[in-house]
């Protein structure tokens, strides 16, 4: 899974609802390859969406701790690549 693909997942998960009742102007700021999921407003609940999307899109089942250790698109893409490499196909 590429860094861009992980970044897309972050973007989908962190995008506020269109029906948001909160104030405007609090949308997720720009998400780069080195943006920290938790600094962007991600929490443990939103993390389950990232982990489910990763599992669905590339079949790798990561945990909350994996995301805590590598909370950026670049970092998580690296974790995914290493997990795939370590599993005999």
């Amino acid at each position, binding site marked *: 899974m590429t860094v861009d693909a992980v970044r897309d997942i972050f973007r989908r998960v962190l995008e*506020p609802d269109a029906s*948001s009742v909160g*104030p405007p102007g609090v949308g997720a700021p720009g998400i780069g390859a080195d943006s920290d999921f938790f600094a962007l407003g991600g*929490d*443990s609940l939103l993390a389950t*969406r990232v*982990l489910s999307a990763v599992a669905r899109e590339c079949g790798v*089942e*990561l945990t909350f701790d994996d*995301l805590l250790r590598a909370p950026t698109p670049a970092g998580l893409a690296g974790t995914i690549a290493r997990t795939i490499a370590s599993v005999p196909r």
Partner: protein
Amino acid sequence: MFRDVAVSLDPTVSPDPTVLDGFLAAADAHPGRTAIADDGRSLSYAALRTRVRAVADRLGPGPGVVAVPAIHTPDTVAGLLGVWLAGGAYCPVDPAFPAARRQAMLTAAGCQIRLDPNLGGHGGAELAYILFTSGSTGEPKPVLTPQAAIGAAVRSVRELFGLTPADRVLQFASLSWDTCFEEILPTLTSGACLVFHPDAYAGSFPRLLRMLDRERVTVLNLPTAFWHELVGYLRESGQPLPASLRLVIVGGEPVRPARLADWHALPTGGRPRLLNTYGCTETTLITHAAELTAAGSGGSPAAGQVPIGRPLPHVVERLSAEGELLIGGPSLAAGYRGLPAATAARFVTVDSARFFRTGDRVRRLPDGSLVPAGRIDQELKVRGIRVDPAEVEAHIAAHPAVGAVAVTGVRVADHTVLAAYVIAAGPHTDPAGLPASIVDHLRGRVPAHLVPSRIRVVERLAYTATGKLDRRRIEETLA
């Protein structure tokens, strides 16, 4: 469903056996059964009782309030029951909280075995535990729960869940919140098995579902926000629920009608049984429950009404003229330790009976069950945890570069996160660096759920005529 207040609080009625008595009776009846399964290891009722006695022996009689690290291990359960056997009160402290917060909790909880006599009402009642809720002053509010309260609540919950020695109940909730007692205590007083497993907390639904299947879990108690995510995963992945699962309980915030419809549309249909529950730390575990059947459960999910249902047998329910839900009966806490004003504001006397003001507005459906209808104050639910925005504001306002602050909830991806709007203290503050500096400041003082996910530096904030922050008008100031 109005019970006679005078009867339910009559002191001549012999008290329920305590939860500890219930555990010891279960250990006598089922010494060889598994009390706790922990990732492949198992602890029998007899072995757990031995550990509980060892904890009590080590503490000695009458240890007062005992702080126990709140971590997901069988030792924590042995610690809880051991503190009770010694005659003490249990106070869980999450080691992940900042040191300053843990110290504030220990100080606020104090070290005494009896309830404060000046709290009134339940003087002399044995204290079971002290848990904390969000307080507007920035300090956590210690809730004093008597043994009689947890005894009454556990008895109702055990009957509601229909627990038998054949059940295997997952331990999921954080050991800092009272939901964990809903998992632990009805289970260990029924001869059933409590299941600990690291995959419960891994945040991965595939792992969770495989573990539930492997461990043959029969009862699953989830925060509503987490259950919403699980339903979304089940629908998208097409994965089945484990066949062993007979009961799912949710609670903590209103159930979303769309997610409930998704649940009933799963291939498993009406199985397992789904219970929506409601309760506050101050009224002990849960006070209301609704069976959410596919055929409709009194409410009209399509109209945005998922009921919290009817009061449990031990609960006295009352609605104020403003629609606020008041709870009475034996499961009320004794009050907030050391905070007589806060106690008097929330624990009130109506028709000579004691009630807790929940702050939750409700509506009664024609069938008598209740549906949530918002708050009477500013309190928020973040991942199922009660947050008073004023508490977060108090901590942010203590940052030297902050002139004023307003905290509110915003919806991100279907759930509530905290957002803070701050005005810099002076023209010399760097607005770009302020949010990160505030996060650092908060991380040293408060638990993670009180750190806003979004922080924005603004020019001005709205105030009401009385000079209070007007959170409802924040939008206007940002427009």
